[in-house]
């Protein structure tokens, strides 16, 4: 699904795609997971409804280069903040975090402050998502 420019761009990279919180829609998360895989990444997918503590521990155990969070419930600020806290509590370095879902523009500065490297919405092209992740991991 990705074009030649992103082909293999994420080879050897480990990326966690996680769904924190209570919303039960993971089509978007799966589409992103497959796009990243097709760009050569090793993608670890957690499945639905995971706690911030669990996601942080998976990020550590799997030694991922980036964490992608799919959040459609509206509580993205709280969830991101808690995951960042939990990662710190485990002594992990700050890995780049990406957020996908329904995120109002007004929340972008706050997510940026929490260290989020990119926010993706359904309006974005998959190639652009892959390119943005690639750029953040160089």
């Amino acid at each position, binding site marked *: 699904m990705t074009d030649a420019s992103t082909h*293999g761009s994420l*080879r050897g990279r480990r990326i966690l795609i996680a769904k924190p919180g209570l919303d039960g829609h993971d089509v978007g998360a799966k589409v992103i997971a497959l796009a990243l895989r097709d760009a050569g990444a090793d993608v670890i*997918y957690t*499945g639905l409804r995971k706690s911030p503590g*669990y996601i942080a521990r*998976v990020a550590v*155990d*799997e*030694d991922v280069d980036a964490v992608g969070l799919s959040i459609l419930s509206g509580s993205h600020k709280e969830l991101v903040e808690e995951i960042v806290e939990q990662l710190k509590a485990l002594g992990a370095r700050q890995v780049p975090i990406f957020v996908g879902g329904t995120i109002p523009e007004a929340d972008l500065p706050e997510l940026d402050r929490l260290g989020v490297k990119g926010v993706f919405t359904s309006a974005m092209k998959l190639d652009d998502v892959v390119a943005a992740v690639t750029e953040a991991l160089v």
Partner: protein
Amino acid sequence: MTAPLQPTFDRLRVSKELSRVASATVEEILHGAGAEPERSRRMRVIGITGAPGVGKSTLIGRLARSRLKGARSLAIVAIDPTSPCTRGSLLGDRIRMEDLGEDPRVFIRSLPSGTSEDGLTDNVAEVLDVLEGSGFDEALLETVGVGQTAQGVRTLADVEVLVLAPGAGDHIQAMKAGVMETADIHVVNKAEQPGAERLVAEVLGVRRRARAGASAAATVIQVRAGESTGVEQLSAALDERLAAGAAVDMQRVRQRYRVQQLVQRRLQETLDQLPVTTWDASLPDNYLAVLRRLHAEARQFNPSK
């Protein structure tokens, strides 16, 4: 309920060490190997193999619960296939091990199969070394769903479990001459589904032919969804098998496997480096050219470098 025992390993360190060896090149492995020959292993390794979709990950999740009783740590290495087209992978075994997620004694690492073609992953022996060195007493090793070629897990695991499920008849056909005969324990998973009885009978038939009837019945365990009897039976059978020890000197067999894996990868790298016009020559010429190339590499190789 008693509070869970505190884990004995350092999460961050294990994790970084595993990444280092899992992605190491042939040369890095050789340079890091040291001068010692393969030594005996203390950590118990339970290999779990079987065709895709038979429920290996779910079974491992349930089995891990049982293995954790009284244990201080448990490692799980779950391998999923690397795409030959994009070299990427989707590692989703965790989804089916859900209820393990909140137990800090469990360490799960998902790995792509990489260039390995026997259901395992590159440098899997070194991955197990790291886990042992980090203090784990036991590891569950889940292979990519494979059919006939599961020699790797047979070599590295102290006990090999083959998971089967009713309704996957074609896979049984494919496995009859291979792992069906070498596995120590057969699990008929999803045994609540139709066809399970027939599958058990089929497995017993293959075992009987392979081992001339010797206690074949004891090695087939039925596991049903929502029922813990089968899983407990499996865990007990594993303990029995682990206590019995290996029949042959596994140190030598493992060393041989490591060497074979490294040489195969090196050969692959060598073939990849040759220009495509190489293959216009005759078969004997090509064969000799590749051997000469490997010979030249051997002369340059200096492990202490």
